[in-house]
């Protein structure tokens, strides 16, 4: 018998704020945290703006001693700490620590540390920054957080490009469902670096102007950084310790278009399949979905393909519910996107209000759903679908429900 999975804590770090409340307040106010890139020289990039984390004090948010870990690790730690606090575990886990695990995900690991090591490697002389290589490792954040909070259960790091955050939630849910853990911290983290921005820029996924998901004049996305971490817990375990349940994780699906590394598959069949598979995994029907938190990057092809997939899978229901993308507000948080967006979805369920798709000005006849343009909207959301897709052709969808 599979155990049911709930969410008992959440933590967010992104350009809108480094805590859940600030993030949500600004998101609902229709604000965007995207602004000029300040942490590196943006010369030659397609856009000199990004969703940089603005307010983040590692000395205050990090553990004692302020260890010199990479920024990406810092984001993951801070979001984890907030999630643990909300779950009532800020002083450490009670009970058997081998039943508490983590599933993190990252596209680039410690990006700044990698660049520091790479620079030293490319120089003909001078010391090789081997310590920086250590801080770059993809699994470093999970290792650091596990050690800091004494989590001795399953520990995994995934790297599924922009489906990473969602895939971490899915795998964490499976670990609990199948009895391998009682609690699992799950989510994605990434920080912006020159390598990342230069690469995403040259792939022309980045717009030269504003990110406008689903808008007729959309021309690409803008990237951001940060982390979203959720505390997933077995429902029976949460009941036993009288933990406040924020949401239920009903199911998920992962797949790949098997078409091309960067070009989208014709007809968007891969996304249709992942949405169908997620509903099956969650044992829910299209009619039960009250809100879709879309991947909605703001690229010409993707937004219409995603719209078509939503319509194909949800049928008439697609026209009855709000479908919004928060990427114009947070930036595309890369590995963090799926988990930050899952958190926004859960907050929407809690407060009965869905966040808007900002920068929306001109409707596109090919994208004809209710994208909640610019202003947050009241809505009763009992069940929601959160969608992600990434470079390499992968897709992910998570089905969440109110407690």
């Amino acid at each position, binding site marked *: 018998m599979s155990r049911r999975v709930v969410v008992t804590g959440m933590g967010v770090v992104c350009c809108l704020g480094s805590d859940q409340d600030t993030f949500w307040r600004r998101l609902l106010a229709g604000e965007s945290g995207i602004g000029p890139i300040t942490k590196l020289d943006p010369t030659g990039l397609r856009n000199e703006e990004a969703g940089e984390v603005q307010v983040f004090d590692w000395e205050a948010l990090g553990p004692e001693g302020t260890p010199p870990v990479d920024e990406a690790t810092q984001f993951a730690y801070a979001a984890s700490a907030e999630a643990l606090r909300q779950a009532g575990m800020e002083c450490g886990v009670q009970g058997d620590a081998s039943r508490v695990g983590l599933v993190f995900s990252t596209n680039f690991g410690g990006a700044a540390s990698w660049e520091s090591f790479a620079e030293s490697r490319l120089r003909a002389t001078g010391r090789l920054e081997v310590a920086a290589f250590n801080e770059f490792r993809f699994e470093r954040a999970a290792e650091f957080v596990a050690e800091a909070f004494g989590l*001795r259960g399953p520990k995994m790091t995934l790297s599924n*490009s922009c489906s990473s955050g969602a895939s971490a939630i899915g795998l964490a849910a499976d670990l609990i469902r199948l009895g391998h853990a009682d609690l699992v911290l799950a989510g994605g983290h990434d920080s912006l670096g020159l*390598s990342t921005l230069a690469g995403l820029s040259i792939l022309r996924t980045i717009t030269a102007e504003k990110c406008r998901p689903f808008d007729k004049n959309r021309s690409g996305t803008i990237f951001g950084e940060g982390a979203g971490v959720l505390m997933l817990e077995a429902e029976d375990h949460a009941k036993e310790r009288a933990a406040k349940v924020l949401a239920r994780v009903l199911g998920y699906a992962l797949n790949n278009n*098997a078409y091309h590394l960067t070009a989208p598959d014709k007809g968007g069949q891969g996304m249709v399949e992942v949405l169908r598979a997620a509903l099956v995994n969650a044992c829910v029907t299209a009619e039960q979905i009250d809100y879709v938190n879309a991947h909605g990057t703001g690229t010409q092809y993707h937004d219409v393909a995603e719209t078509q997939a939503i319509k194909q899978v949800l049928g008439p229901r697609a026209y009855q519910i709000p479908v919004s993308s928060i990427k114009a507000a947070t930036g595309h948080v890369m590995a963090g996107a799926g988990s930050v967006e899952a958190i926004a979805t859960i907050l929407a369920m809690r407060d009965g209000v869905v966040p808007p798709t900002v920068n929306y000005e001109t409707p596109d006849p090919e994208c004809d759903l209710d994208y909640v343009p610019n202003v947050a909207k009241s809505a009763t959301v009992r069940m929601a679908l959160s969608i992600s897709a990434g470079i390499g052709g*992968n897709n992910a969808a998570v089905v969440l429900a109110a407690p």
Partner: protein
Amino acid sequence: MNERPQIVVTGVGPVSSLGIGREAFAGGLRTGASGLQPAGPEWGEEWSGRPLGGVADFDVGRYLESEKTYLDRASAFALAGSKLALKDAGLLPLAVDPTRIGVCLGTAFGCLDTMLSFLAKVFDKGAKYANSVLFSHSYANSPISLVAIEFGLRGYHSTVTDGVSSGLAAIAQAALALQTGQADVVVAGGVEALGHVLLSAMREPSRAGAPPGPQADTQAPLGEGAGLLVLETSDHASKRGAEPLCCVAAIGFGPHCERAVCFRADSGSAVTWCLSDSIGECFGASGALEACGAAVCLSAGYSPASEKGAPRSAEVASCRVRLTLERCPTEASP
């Protein structure tokens, strides 16, 4: 609720210094050969002459339908290992529902040399002249994406980047996907490629006042390769007439355990086997290559660490992941 599906291993695709493909790899295991060779001068002064488990004479073209513009060595290993595993499992040409066959791949470091080549161009010429091909091949999930594309695998899909446990953890994730009904078949395992970036990073960590240098005397020899297994529900395997090598008896997670492979005989006696003695530390590929070796030995009825009797089971452990494989029950067994 239905019982969870039983999982079997129906094919293996090892790519290692011990041999490429099931037969060559098994031959190396049986004879107790070593794949370690003294590193040539191309690896630089610090490594020249030291034992390395490099995969020699590797031509990825043998495993692909068409020539590729560019491939990182890790991606090349992933493609070769996946092809060998799928072929060994009798799954090529693909005659199963492509949305029900997935891939789970582990790698500790991904495509480091491509990452460095990409960044070198950015440092040299500026972001405007970055190379899009190099960037798209530099992701840790570039190898898995290329595998899915090459073989049309549209199902469950995930890359694990968990250091030395990566390959074994990917196999465990594949098992979870099969147990929860999210796939019927998953090609699962790990890859790791030796390259200049990795070798330079594996020097002794710089300490204040001490010059950098290789961890020569304390560092185990390094190696590379890919270990891919085809995991399948036993129902699906039996319906298509596939003969399993062994069964997946259990997967386990946390707490930390030593890296080891332990073969147990029917009598209960146990022997420990260390594949890295023969092929070097292969990071994300190591646990998966050990799993390939264990599957081959269970199927063939011998233990590489002992002459005495056919093993009944093999437990492969790496940090916080454990995989237990068992000999398939025969008609005569209770």
